[in-house]
C-alpha cells in the first residue's frame, strides 16, 4: 500500500485549475479572475497553458521516487518520473491497466515466469538533457535498497537482491542491462504474479546514475516525464514546469502518457483544510489534494457537486484489527462477536458518508472482489458469543490515531467493546507515528485498533500477502497488525502470489477473502470515498482520478 496509513488516509483529491490568472502566464484570454461555478458548464472546452495553483495539507513523506511511499508523493511525482511500465492515465478499471512506460513494450516473460525481458526506448532524455540509459533502471532498483526504501521489499525476489540489501555492494546480479541495445533482463528467484505491477511503481522509475543514494526531496532529480520539478522546499511546497525534452523527444514516443495542459504547477503546503476550501471557492487555489474537512464536506458536496466537486471511490479497506496472539482476541468467538457488534452504518455516519460500509478484506473494484456479508450487525448475538467464549471484563487497549474522524471511530469502537462485555481503554496517537508504534511488536498492549489500507497496485495479493500472511509478520514496521498466521491460508497466498492474475486466480482470491473473514481476522467496516475539488475555472469534466495515483495532474486544464 502506499503505506502509511496516516498519509493514505488523507489522500483525497482533486483536480484543478487555475483561473488563467494573468499572472499565470498562460495563454491567452483568461480574464485574471476565476469565473463563477455556474460559469463552467459540463463539457466546457479546455485551453492549454496557465499556472495551476494547488495545495497539500502536509508535504509528502519524500519527493524522491525511490523513497516516497504515500499517496501524496505518488500523486505529486506521477507527471515527473515514469517507470519502465506504468498505469494508464485513466479512471476505474481502465486506470488499472499496465502499459509500457519507458519500455518499448510490455515485458516478455519466460523461464517459468521467472525472467522478464524488456527494451528501453531509444533517444529518451531527462529534463537536464542527459540520455536515459538502461542502467538507470538497474540503479533505481539498487537505490531502493541503498536508501532502505519502504518499497524495497517488492523487489527482494530479484536474484541477488537480498544479498545486495545486506551488503549494499556489488549490484543486483539478477538485473542485466545492455546499454547499446537497451535490453533489460530481470531474473527472479521464483515466479511472482505481481511483478509487472511492481515494475509499474514509482520506486523503480529510472533516474540518472549519478543521483546520490540519499533523500533528494530538497534537490529535485531530473525528470523523465512531461513535467520537471523546478523547486522543492520540504515543508513548504514545490513547483513544476514543462520538461523541455518532453515535446521534442520523450513525448513523441510515449504517446499514451498525456503531456499535460498547464505550463506551470505551483503547490503549497497549507495546513488549514478549511482555508484550502475557502481558497478554492475564491479561485485563489485551483485544486487541493486532500478532501474537504469532515466539518465542511457536506456543504461543499451539496454546493459544488458536478461543477467543481466529484466524490471519488478508492480501492481501500478501513478495518479494526484484533491481535490473534493474545487474549481475548485469540478466541475466535470474541473476534466474531466484534464483527457482529461493529455497525458499518454507524461508521458511515461518523465518517460523514465518506466511507461505504463493507465487511470483507477486499474492497469493491479490486479483482477478486465478490460481495458477501458474514456478520450482519447484531449486538445481541455479539453478547451471546462473548458469553460463550467465557471471557468477561477482559481489559483490552484500543489504538487509533488522532486524525478526524479516525479518532471518533476509535472512540465508537471502544464504547462498543465495553458494551459487549470487554473493558476497553482507548489510546489515541499522533498520526505521524501511529503506524510506527503499532507496527512495533514490542509495544505493550497491542490488542486491537484502527487501520486502513489503500492499494499499491490493482492486485488482491497487495491486501493478503502484506496484511494477513503469517510469513510477513515483522518485529518492526509490521503491517500484519492482527498477527494473523493461519498456515493453510499462508500457503494459498504464497501459491497465488506466484501465478499471473486471471479469472481462476480471481475466483481463488474471492474464496480466500471469505476464508479470512470466516476466521474473523479483522472487523472491516468500510471503503473510503475521497474527492476531487477544483476551482470554478478548472474543467472538472476532463479531470482524471486514477485508482492508484488519484488525481492525474496532467489532466487538469483551465476552461476556455
Amino acid at each position, binding site marked *: 500500500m502506499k503505506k502509511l496509513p496516516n498519509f493514505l488516509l488523507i489522500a483525497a483529491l482533486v483536480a484543478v485549475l487555475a483561473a488563467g490568472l494573468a499572472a499565470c502566464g498562460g495563454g491567452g484570454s483568461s480574464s485574471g479572475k476565476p469565473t463563477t461555478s455556474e460559469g463552467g458548464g459540463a463539457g466546457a472546452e479546455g485551453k492549454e497553458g496557465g499556472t495551476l495553483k494547488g495545495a497539500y495539507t502536509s508535504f509528502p513523506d519524500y519527493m524522491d521516487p525511490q523513497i516516497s511511499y504515500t499517496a501524496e508523493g505518488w500523486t505529486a511525482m506521477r507527471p515527473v518520473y515514469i517507470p519502465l511500465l506504468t498505469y494508464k492515465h485513466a479512471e476505474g478499471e481502465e486506470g488499472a491497466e499496465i502499459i509500457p512506460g519507458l519500455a518499448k513494450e510490455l515485458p516478455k516473460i519466460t523461464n517459468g515466469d521467472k525472467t522478464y525481458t524488456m527494451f528501453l526506448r531509444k533517444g529518451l532524455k531527462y529534463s537536464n538533457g542527459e540520455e536515459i540509459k538502461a542502467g538507470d533502471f538497474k540503479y533505481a532498483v539498487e537505490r531502493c535498497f541503498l536508501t532502505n526504501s519502504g518499497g524495497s521489499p517488492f523487489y527482494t525476489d530479484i536474484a541477488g537482491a537480498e544479498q545486495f540489501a545486506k551488503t549494499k555492494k556489488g549490484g543486483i546480479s539478477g538485473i542485466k542491462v545492455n546499454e547499446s541495445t537497451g535490453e533489460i533482463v530481470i531474473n527472479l528467484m521464483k515466479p511472482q504474479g505481481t511483478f509487472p505491477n511492481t515494475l509499474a511503481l514509482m520506486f523503480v522509475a529510472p533516474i540518472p546514475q549519478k543521483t546520490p543514494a540519499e533523500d533528494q526531496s530538497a534537490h529535485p532529480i531530473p525528470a523523465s516525464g512531461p513535467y520537471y520539478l523546478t523547486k522543492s522546499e520540504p515543508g513548504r511546497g514545490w513547483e513544476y514546469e514543462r520538461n523541455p525534452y518532453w515535446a521534442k523527444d520523450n513525448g513523441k514516443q510515449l504517446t499514451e502518457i498525456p503531456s499535460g495542459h498547464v505550463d506551470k504547477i505551483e503547490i503549497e503546503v497549507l495546513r488549514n483544510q478549511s482555508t484550502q476550501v475557502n481558497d478554492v471557492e475564491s479561485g485563489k487555489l485551483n485544486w487541493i489534494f486532500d478532501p474537504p474537512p469532515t466539518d465542511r464536506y457536506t456543504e461543499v458536496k451539496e454546493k459544488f457537486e458536478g461543477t467543481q466537486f466529484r466524490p471519488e471511490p478508492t480501492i481501500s479497506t478501513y478495518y479494526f484489527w484484533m491481535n490473534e496472539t493474545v487474549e481475548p482476541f485469540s478466541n475466535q468467538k470474541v473476534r466474531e462477536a466484534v464483527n457482529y457488534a461493529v455497525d458499518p452504518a454507524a461508521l458511515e455516519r461518523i465518517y460523514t458518508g465518506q466511507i461505504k460500509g463493507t465487511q470483507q478484506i477486499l474492497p469493491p473494484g479490486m479483482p477478486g472482489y465478490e460481495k458477501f456479508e458474514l456478520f450482519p450487525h447484531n449486538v445481541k448475538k455479539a453478547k451471546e458469543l462473548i458469553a460463550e467464549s467465557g471471557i468477561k471484563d477482559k481489559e483490552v487497549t484500543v489504538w487509533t490515531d488522532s486524525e478526524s474522524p479516525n479518532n471518533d471511530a476509535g472512540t*465508537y469502537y471502544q464504547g462498543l467493546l465495553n458494551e459487549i462485555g470487554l473493558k476497553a481503554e482507548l*489510546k489515541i496517537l499522533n498520526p505521524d507515528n501511529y503506524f510506527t508504534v503499532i507496527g512495533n511488536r514490542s509495544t505493550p498492549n497491542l490488542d486491537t485498533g484502527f487501520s486502513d489500507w489503500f492499494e499499491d497496485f490493482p492486485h488482491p495479493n497487495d491486501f493478503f500477502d502484506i496484511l494477513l500472511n503469517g510469513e510477513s509478520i515483522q518485529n518492526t514496521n509490521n503491517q500484519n497488525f492482527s498477527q494473523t498466521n493461519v498456515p493453510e491460508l499462508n500457503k494459498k497466498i504464497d501459491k497465488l502470489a506466484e501465478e499471473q492474475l486471471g479469472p481462476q486466480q480471481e475466483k481463488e482470491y474471492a474464496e480466500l477473502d471469505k476464508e479470512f473473514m470466516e476466521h474473523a481476522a479483522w472487523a472491516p467496516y468500510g471503503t473510503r470515498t475521497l474527492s476531487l475539488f477544483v476551482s470554478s475555472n478548472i474543467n472538472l469534466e476532463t479531470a482524471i482520478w486514477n485508482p492508484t495515483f488519484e488525481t492525474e495532474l496532467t489532466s487538469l486544464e483551465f476552461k476556455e
Partner: protein
Amino acid sequence: MPPESENPGTEAPIPIGTGALDADLGIGPDGAGVVEAAPGEAGPGGGPWAVAWRRLRRNKVALFSLAVFLLIVICCLLAPVWANQVAHTGPNTTHTLEKLHVGGEVREVVEPSGKAIGPQWFEAGGKFFLGADGHLGRDEMVRLLYGGRSSLFIGIVAALITTILAVTFALLAGYYGGWPDTIISRAMDVIWAFPVVLLGISLGIVLAVGGLVIGPIHLKSSSLWIPTLIIGVVYTPYMARPLRGEILALREKEFIEAAIAQGASGFRIMFVELLPNLLSTIIVFFTLNIANNMLLEAVLSYLGAGVQPPSSSWGTMISEGFQALYSQPILTIIPGTAILLTVLSVNVFGDGLRDALDPKSKVRFEARAGTAAEMDNPI
C-alpha cells in the same frame, strides 16, 4: 459586624501579637513586614484572620467571584445526578444513529452529513440540553459537567501537589542553605528552563502511551492523575523560588535566632516558626495556581497530552469541538466559556484574598509561557 471604617482609604498597622498567626500575615516578631489594617479592624477580639476576613468581606467582587466558582463546583459535582435523572445517558455514551422525539417531531441526533443536533434546552426533557457533540452524538451537557469535574480535579489537586512540593523544597533550600540549597535550586532551574507548555506536552505524550510505573504504583495512561502530576510538578519551581527567597529573609530575623538559641531543631524551626510566616503567601499562590493549572490542563488536553479521550475535560471538549468549528462553533464556545468563567472567578477571588491577607504584598504568579513567578516585595 465590624465597625465601618471611617476612612477606608487609609490603613493602620495591626498590633503585633505573638505566635504563629501573627506571622500568617507576613508579620515578624520584630515588626518587619507589618501589614497595615484599616482603622477599626484590629479590635481587641480581632485576630489577624478576623482582620483578613473583614477585609475580604468588604471586597464584593471577590466574594461574587467565589460564589460563581462555588456554583460551578457544585454543578460539576452534581454531574451524575444530571446524567442519570435528566439526560439519561453517560458522558461517553454514543448516540450516532439514534433519533430524538421532540414535540411529536423526530430528529436525528447526528444527521447523515455528520452534523450533530443543537441545543434542545428542555424541549426533550433535558436530553441534549446543549446538543450533541459531533459525529458520535454524545450529550454535550453531560460531557460539560463531567469534563468540569476533571478540569477542577486537576486544577485543585495539582495546586495541592505544587504547594506541597514547593513548600518542602523552599523550606529545605532556604533554611539550610549550602549544598541542599544548591541542589534544590539547580534542579528547580532545570525545570524552569523548559517552557511550561513544552515540558507538559513532552511528559504528557510520553506517559500517554505507556502510563506511569513507579515501583508498585501503576497509573494507566488514561488516568487523570497523570496530567495532574505533570501539572503539579512543572509549576513547582514557580512557587518554590519566591518562597525560598522569602525564607532566606526570614531566617535572618531575631525570632529565628532566638529559636536556634533555645535549641529548637531544624524541623521545628522550619515547620513551626517559618511555615506560619509563609502561610498568607502560600494561600494566595495556591488560589492563583488553581486557575493556571486549569488553563494548562486545557492546553495539554487540546494538544492531546492531557486528559485522554474518551474522558472529557474542558480542554478535550475544545479540541473535539475544534474539528467542527466551522459548522458548529457552539461545541467550542461552550467549554471555552466554562474555562473562562472558572479561571476568571478564581483569579478575581485570588486577588481579593491576597489583598485581604497581605495588602502590601505584590505576589504575582505569572508562570504562563515560561514567565518567572515574581515576588516584588518578598518581605
